[in-house]
């Protein structure tokens, strides 16, 4: 019997009383599990971002939970919830059933714990997670050197980004190029400057699209609620 601490990333109803769970275990394995009787009185209610002590008999494919106890209740709220849902969607997009990817669980736990802090800077948490997740999947981005030549990024030069080729020096400051000092800031997770945040968002989005598929991540639509409100109001005003 396996006993592990797990986060539930997705849960779906199965029959009247059971749930199908997709979980990230403490061993960084993405497990699909059946939780029989989950909706019965007295069963541990399952929610996202909380930690559960679970046990199951290991096997390929869907496992059946033998026990489930709540260990830590999530306190995520507000925009941090949206950020958490984005992280869940990203992990699901990047991992297959029963796949183990070292460091994903610590990265996930670190992101969720950071998001629970009242003063959490969502952009910083998300960019840091994206970098770490890509690295765990084997797609590390080197922000401090050119991949092709091995030359160190110069703070005074400009660079073009390609998800496969990495950064290459640009002769001019093109519209699509990034200043070297911005890349060096991203490499050490220093996101204080708006210019750095914007560049990190664009570069990492580009890399994620390339490696995890170009289908848009749904959670991004939540992070722009104000834009949605304007669109809805605008559409109504024109009707």
């Amino acid at each position: 019997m396996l006993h592990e601490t797990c986060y539930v990333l997705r849960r779906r109803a199965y029959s009247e009383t059971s749930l199908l769970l997709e979980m990230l275990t403490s061993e960084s394995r993405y497990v699909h599990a059946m939780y029989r009787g989950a909706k019965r009185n007295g069963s541990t209610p399952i929610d996202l971002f909380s930690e559960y002590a679970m046990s199951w008999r290991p096997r390929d494919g869907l496992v059946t939970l033998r026990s489930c106890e709540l260990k830590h209740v999530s306190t995520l709220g507000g925009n941090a919830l949206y950020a958490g849902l984005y992280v869940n969607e990203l992990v699901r997009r990047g991992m297959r059933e029963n796949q183990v990817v070292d460091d994903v669980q610590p990265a996930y736990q670190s992101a969720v714990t950071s998001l629970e802090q009242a003063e959490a800077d969502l952009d910083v948490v998300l960019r840091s997670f994206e970098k770490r997740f890509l690295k765990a999947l084997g797609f590390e981005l080197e922000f401090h050197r050119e991949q092709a030549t091995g030359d160190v990024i110069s703070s005074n030069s400009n660079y073009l980004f390609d998800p496969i080729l990495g950064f290459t020096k640009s002769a001019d400051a093109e519209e699509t190029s990034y200043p070297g000092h911005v890349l060096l800031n991203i490499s050490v997770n220093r996101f204080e400057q708006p210019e750095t945040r914007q560049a990190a968002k664009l570069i990492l989005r580009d890399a994620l699209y390339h490696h995890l598929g170009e289908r848009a991540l749904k959670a991004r639509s939540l992070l722009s609620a104000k834009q949605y409100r304007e669109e809805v109001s605008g559409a109504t005003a024109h009707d």
Partner: protein
Amino acid sequence: MAALTPRIEQVIHALQCLPGVGRKTATRMTLFLLQGHREDAEHLASSINEALATVTSCAKCHNLSDAEVCDICTDERRANGQLCVVETAADLVAIEETGTFEGRYFVLHGLLSPIDGIGPDELSLGTFLPCVRDGAIREVIVALSTTVEGEATTHFISELLENSGVALTQLAHGIPVGGELGYVNSRTITQAFERRVKLDS
């Protein structure tokens, strides 16, 4: 020779789309209808056909309705400035059965769940703000599940209503009436403590 003909099997298979109905129950239902209750079976089939042909989504609140606009939305006595947001038509029915709410509803038909591909566009949120404005709504009452998806949807609605002047309230969370504290999970107890109410003394 098979005990059940293909036509009967077809009915059994069709009935299994209902929640909580497995093959055994579906077989029992099918044999019940086809053996001695053929009139009931015809009535059932014609009722479902008629409902499918006529029942639609209310243009205002998205509840199931026989007309373009449902009875609740056309009832002037329900225009009290309150709008209750629910996830499903079943939730609306549950609230109506209590007889405690006299305002109007807005049915989302789901909750925000990006991992399942459900964002604002997949819910009926596009018509939410017009519904609030056109209905002269003063208070929006959120009656959604207390799951992460419910909380995310509630937060999204709060953002939609920002600076609108409309009051936003949420159903209370806590110990269920008639429930024993020992059987309540720790998250609910934590929320019940945080949202405790003062008693008159």
